């Protein structure tokens, strides 16, 4: 974990971050749009970018940190090459999502919130994707999946291991 942080720090592209911040700094309520753009560009919100944001928006560093930590979407370190978000809310519970979570742990040693050892796949829990009429639902690299089954999970894990993002 620490290793990936320091690797991320080394590869931080300050100029790119600066451009992204400047592009949105003029918006009303610019902080979330900026954080989304950074998250998209770097696959996380680099710590080194926070002082740049604070300066551009005339905020304290603490304000910026507080916002980053409040929202589940803003990550402090990069995710795996693929991200599988599994819905764990009521409708998906009613269709057995907990059994799928157990299957991931038993068959693939993957738990919610973790990234596989080869860095191929991050599994996250989300609460509702709006596909409740075809539960259990998931998003694989932002593409929706309905009626998720253990066999489909096996295939996704395999697919993630074989391909780059």
């Amino acid at each position, binding site marked *: 974990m620490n290793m990936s942080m320091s690797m991320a720090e080394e590869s931080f592209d300050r100029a790119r971050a600066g451009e992204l911040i400047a592009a949105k700094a003029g918006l009303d309520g*610019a902080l*979330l749009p900026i954080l*989304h753009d950074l998250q998209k560009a770097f696959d996380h919100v680099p710590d080194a970018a926070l002082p740049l944001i604070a300066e551009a928006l005339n905020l304290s560093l603490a304000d910026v940190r507080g916002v980053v930590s409040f929202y589940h*979407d803003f990550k402090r370190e990069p995710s795996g090459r693929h991200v599988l978000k599994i819905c764990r809310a*009521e409708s*998906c519970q009613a269709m057995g999502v907990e059994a799928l979570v157990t299957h991931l742990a038993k068959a693939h040693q993957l738990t919610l919130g973790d990234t596989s050892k080869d860095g191929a796949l991050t599994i996250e829990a989300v*609460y509702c994707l709006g596909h409740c009429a075809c539960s259990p639902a998931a998003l694989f690299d932002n593409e*929706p999946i309905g009626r998720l089954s253990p066999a489909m999970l096996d295939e996704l894990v395999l697919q993630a291991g074989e391909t780059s993002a």
Partner: protein
Amino acid sequence: MSIRIYVPRDSSALALGAEPVAKAIAQEAQARGLDVTILRNGTRGMVWLEPLVEVETPLGRVGYGPVTTRDVVGLFDAGFLQGADHALHQGIVDEIDWMRAQQRITFARTGVIDPLSIADYRAHGGFDALVKALTMPSTQIVDEVSASGLRGRGGAGFPTGIKWCTAAQVQAEQKYIVCNADEGDSGTFADRMLMEGDPFALIEGMIIAGLAIGATKGFIYIRSEYPHACHVIERALRLAQRAGYLGERIMGSAQSFSIEMRMGAGAYICGEETSLLESLEGKRGQVRAKPPLPAIAGLFGKPTIINNVLTLATVPWIITHGAAAYAHLGSGRSRGTQPFQIAGNVKRGGLMELPFGVSLREIIETYGSGTASGRPLRAVQVGGPLGAYFPAHLLETPLDYESMSAAGGLLGHGGIVLFDDSVDLARQARFAMEFCAIESCGKCTPCRIGSTRGVELIDKISANQEREGNVTVLKDLCETMTEASLCALGGLTPLPVMSALTHFPEDFAPPATAGLAAQ
């Protein structure tokens, strides 16, 4: 002449394989040298039939579903382009039993039109209301909305006309229209379906709201869990801008209105209106104390109307057809229609729009057709994670704001989640507290701390530790959360917890002492 085929691009249809089906149909048509046009519509709401492919015939649109890529060659062989019979043939889509009894107002166009075609939108009555509203005095627009009886569809059911009237009466240089598209309740997907299937209806409703209160700027705040809805809305906004429905001098009038889309960042609490405003301002999504009401001091301290997607998307129909036509539908003080959504362990999941007052049982039996697992239905949660769990004997409850409240629950955003007899209601109650702990914004103590204490108490009760005493403490904690929380998250989490404990006490008791927990 080219035959028109509709393959939905609604994200639930995509989740069930609509994209490869669309490609396979295009390839097969090309291989056979047939002239077809594939249009990508939203969903009709029959998610159980998705991907539902429709073919335009002289008799109407004929549906085939659920279609997989393996079915495509067979469909061509059977002559589906002429509406011929096939194992997946569903008949004329408008005449399918699911569709026939509905009264589609808010969802009249969803699934029917190409969501990103302004021409198609206009051909189905789109922007008629805006044309009319541009000739109306602003007070008359507010009066129409008030007289329609329309109430906030986000869940709270606050009368829309009162909100609008308040914001209209405040004098300010800048006012805002904010659309709350942070639909986070499990079992609800109506906002998503509307945004993906009929985005201009929402845009038109927001422009009319702007005319009504004198606002020139709007924001649509969509949750990040809805990447496809974000994409459709962004494209629709650009199209509307280019066609002169947004920007300076809309439709050649003296009025201006612009809309920006903003994406949430995975915080459930931002569906709460004041927290959403904080988030739009670029802050932590922490709830504000009210007063001041957002209608008086909302976004950036300016008068702001914040309404749910469905509320705003229903306004054009009301302006076009008149308040009386809308108010004519419904029951008691719940006027008009509600898009209900049935989900969870259900055989036929989807959305249906009906006048208020229909019973839970009717929706579950007529539309849902029972559980997906085929096991007996045991519990029904209505209104999302903050809604009550209903047992079988309460299924006659009419679905309207007042009746649901009288039955100890809430209608919320109209989501109905079915659970079969494998459900453990103690576990569901624990989850309600756990979810509240995960998603609490932390501003008020009953929610921030009460939710964690609630999880601990339910664990103790389930482990049979000082059962009676802990049940008493849990009830007391729920009362505190209900009465003293700043917003609905802490204030309503006790609903699923207490309804589970009241209606399903046996799940909280160890086998040997079943029944004690109800004391």
